[in-house]
């Protein structure tokens, strides 16, 4: 008897409900039913398909299982709410044995739902995070766009204000007038600095500062930073010392401009709070990280110092140690905040140690890469820059400049800057005019406004570069003039083919310094300005001559490359062909030059080939076709 009970209780003990099919949809429970099944009693026959619609769906499929010797069939999983409000995950199995047809209902462990729940929760949470990230990025982009526009709008009039003050100060003025101009200049520059700081900070904060990774000379970075503050240092009767500890690698890879910016900010800060004594910039290997390229900079002063409780807050935006210092010493306190952000971008940290009344030392660390070659060979010219700038921005004599700007004010300003420099300036009111002038005349430098009607600076520069490629001419320096101060502006400019970028407001010293870097090629002896050569195209040749000329122009680059590779055979072959065809197409000069080049190639005379290739390029650039009507 007790064995029977055990058998009867087995299904319930195994958490299974076992039924035998009585007819179509009616099933009779066998043994005890587990508590999750809300059936009452154990012997009653019931319409299970009515109770579980899922079974109704599976009954037709189960028929196969209830055939004699049919295979057992398992249903899909479904969910039922149990009487207590919880959920059960069920599955039905149909099977037959000894001519009897059975149906077993079983529950699946709750983990089944738990895993799925966790997986879905995780995926939904991830989407939520992505959504917030996207929203934040959009907001940031809007902010950056706004700042870029504002920066342009503010800098353009400032350009005119500061520039005109500069021009005015170079004229004869009474003492009173000079004082007025100086106040105007000083405040203009102050306002510009403030705008730059605010823009810088928002760029860093919105993650829009991308650090460069270029080769740099640590000594040069420090020298150029100290050059910037030199006047203020000597003006206050202070001295400035610089030292790089022995063993510190000086040829590094990093962002020299941002590193210099930090040093200038710290020096500027020190100058502001120091009345007498000395400022020092020192660099040593980071004592806490001995890897090469991990450096610790220290900028120390003998100034008023910072109270201990204010040491941390000096790096916060718009904070100086004491709010009254703002009134006394000026400044926004943004410089240190920007420095902190930049230093952190460079993988380091910044802090200050100070004694009130004795002075402060600002430390910062950076993690830079070290160039493999630390030897001084073949680098000497790089260090000449300071002596060059000491020559006070003298332009190369006879420099020919093409200025493209649609604004009368800007053109007048730049022209007045260039007045008395001996430069010859041609004017273009838009990019299209600039390109046409460029095709006709040789220039040493093109100053190209970026935003112009008809054809903007980007398109015009691309056109100029295309022309140079076609004629095989050396690339001319094309400087972008733009009021957009963002990094994107420079990237875009570089893509268009600009050599460098000058940010408006452009000050006289900046312009002259930029121009002084470039030689006056067109005025060099032996390279006279290219005269225009007009060649009449014979009737019937109109369709072939331009193509012939374009091919010869394209060949100039091949000559140069072959010369660089020492591939004289290629030069000989090209020259031979030109010799044979030039006159036939109406260009006897090409035949002559081809003959000279061919001979030079046979002699392997690189000097002669170079000269003649230049001559060829010059001729091809100067040729203008005229068609007989």
């Amino acid at each position, binding site marked *: 008897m007790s064995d029977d009970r055990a058998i009867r209780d087995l299904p319930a003990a195994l958490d299974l409900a076992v039924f035998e099919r009585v007819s179509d949809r009616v099933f009779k429970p066998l043994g005890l039913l587990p508590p999750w099944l809300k059936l009452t009693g154990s012997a009653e026959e019931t319409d299970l398909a009515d109770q579980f*619609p*899922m079974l109704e*769906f599976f009954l037709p499929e189960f028929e196969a299982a209830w055939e004699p010797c049919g295979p057992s069939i398992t249903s*899909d*999983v*479904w*969910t*039922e*709410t149990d009487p207590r409000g919880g*959920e059960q*995950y069920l599955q039905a199995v149909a099977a037959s044995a000894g001519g009897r047809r059975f149906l077993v209902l079983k529950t*699946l462990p709750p983990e*089944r*739902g738990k895993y*799925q*729940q966790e*997986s*879905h*929760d995780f*995926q*939904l949470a991830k*989407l939520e995070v992505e*959504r917030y990230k996207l929203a934040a990025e959009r907001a940031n982009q809007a902010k950056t766009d706004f700042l870029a526009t504002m920066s342009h709008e503010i800098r353009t009039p400032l350009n005119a204000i500061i520039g005109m003050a500069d021009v005015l100060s170079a004229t004869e003025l009474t003492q009173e007038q000079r004082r007025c101009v100086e106040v105007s200049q000083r405040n203009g520059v102050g306002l510009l600095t403030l705008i730059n700081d605010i823009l810088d900070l928002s760029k860093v904060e919105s993650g829009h500062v991308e650090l460069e990774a270029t080769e740099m000379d640590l000594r040069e970075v420090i020298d150029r930073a100290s050059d910037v503050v030199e006047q203020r240092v000597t003006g206050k009767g202070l001295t400035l010392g610089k030292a790089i500890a022995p063993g510190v690698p000086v040829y590094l890879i990093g962002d020299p401009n941002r590193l210099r910016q930090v040093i200038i900010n710290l020096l500027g800060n020190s100058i502001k709070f120091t009345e007498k004594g000395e400022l020092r910039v020192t660099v040593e290997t980071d004592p806490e990280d001995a890897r090469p390229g991990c450096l610790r900079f220290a900028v120390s002063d003998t100034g008023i110092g910072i109270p201990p409780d204010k040491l941390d807050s000096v790096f916060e935006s718009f904070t100086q140690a004491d709010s009254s210092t703002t009134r006394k010493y000026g400044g926004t306190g943004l410089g240190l905040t920007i420095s902190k952000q930049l230093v952190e971008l460079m993988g380091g940290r910044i802090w200050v140690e100070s004694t009130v009344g004795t002075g402060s030392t600002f430390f910062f660390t950076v993690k830079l890469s070290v160039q493999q070659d630390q030897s001084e060979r073949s680098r000497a010219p790089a260090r000449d820059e300071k002596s060059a700038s000491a020559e006070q921005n003298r332009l190369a004599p006879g420099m020919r400049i093409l200025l493209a700007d649609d604004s009368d004010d800007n053109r007048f300003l730049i022209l007045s800057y260039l007045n008395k420099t001996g430069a010859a300036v041609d004017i273009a009111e838009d990019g299209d005019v600039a390109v046409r002038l460029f095709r006709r005349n040789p220039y040493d430098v093109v100053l190209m406004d970026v935003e112009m009607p008809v054809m903007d600076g980007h398109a015009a520069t691309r056109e100029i570069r295309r022309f140079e490629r076609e004629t095989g001419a050396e690339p001319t320096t094309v400087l972008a003039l733009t009021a957009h101060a963002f990094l994107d502006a420079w990237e875009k400019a570089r893509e268009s083919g600009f050599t460098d970028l000058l940010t408006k407001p452009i000050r006289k010293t900046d312009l002259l310094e930029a121009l002084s870097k470039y030689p006056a090629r067109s005025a060099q002896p032996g390279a006279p300005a290219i005269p225009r050569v007009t060649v009449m195209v014979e009737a019937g040749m109109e369709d072939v001559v331009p193509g012939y000329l374009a091919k010869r122009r394209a060949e100039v680059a091949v000559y140069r490359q072959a010369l660089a590779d020492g591939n004289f055979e290629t030069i000989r072959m090209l020259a031979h062909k030109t010799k044979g065809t030039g006159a036939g197409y109406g260009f006897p000069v090409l035949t002559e030059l081809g003959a000279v080049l061919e001979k030079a190639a046979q002699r392997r005379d690189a000097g002669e080939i170079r000269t003649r290739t230049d001559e060829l390029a010059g001729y091809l650039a100067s040729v203008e076709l005229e068609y007989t009507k």
Partner: protein
Amino acid sequence: MSKCKICLLGSFGVGKTSLVARFVRSDFSDKYHTTVGVKIDKKTLAVDGEEAIAMVWDMAGEEDNAPVNLKQLRDASGYLLVVDGTRSSTLDVARSIQDRVETEIGKQPFLLLVNKVDLRESWEIPDSAWEDLAARGWTILETSAKTGEHVEEAFRTLTSRILQARRDAEDADE
């Protein structure tokens, strides 16, 4: 009384279970609760002067490694495709499911429900997407299981279409 088997299909987390809870029990919970397998509910409703029992099959949402079990659509009368307006990927899933249903099961009455209209300001699917689908003849309803907006209407509209289709088929038989 006619029985209509209505399946809810769509990506996981779009609110299928919530729509059923709103429709069957006038209930709503903010807490996300995943559906294991399928959960079947029923509700009697009167449509076009006719009483019908809606057997609502709330099917587990589709996810990358678990496509919906289309086998369960056998003998279904129609289906509701549910999209979460705040997740554009759920529209792609809905389109893909509709495509598979049409290929594997055949044409059936269906509606597209763009759920979570209460969160309209954070919808990321552009209106043009709906216009495209409407142009293809899809009926689209913006629903909110949270507020109940258009939920009852969605089930009623589909049921009405199912019954109409049946009447049309019967007329054709005669």
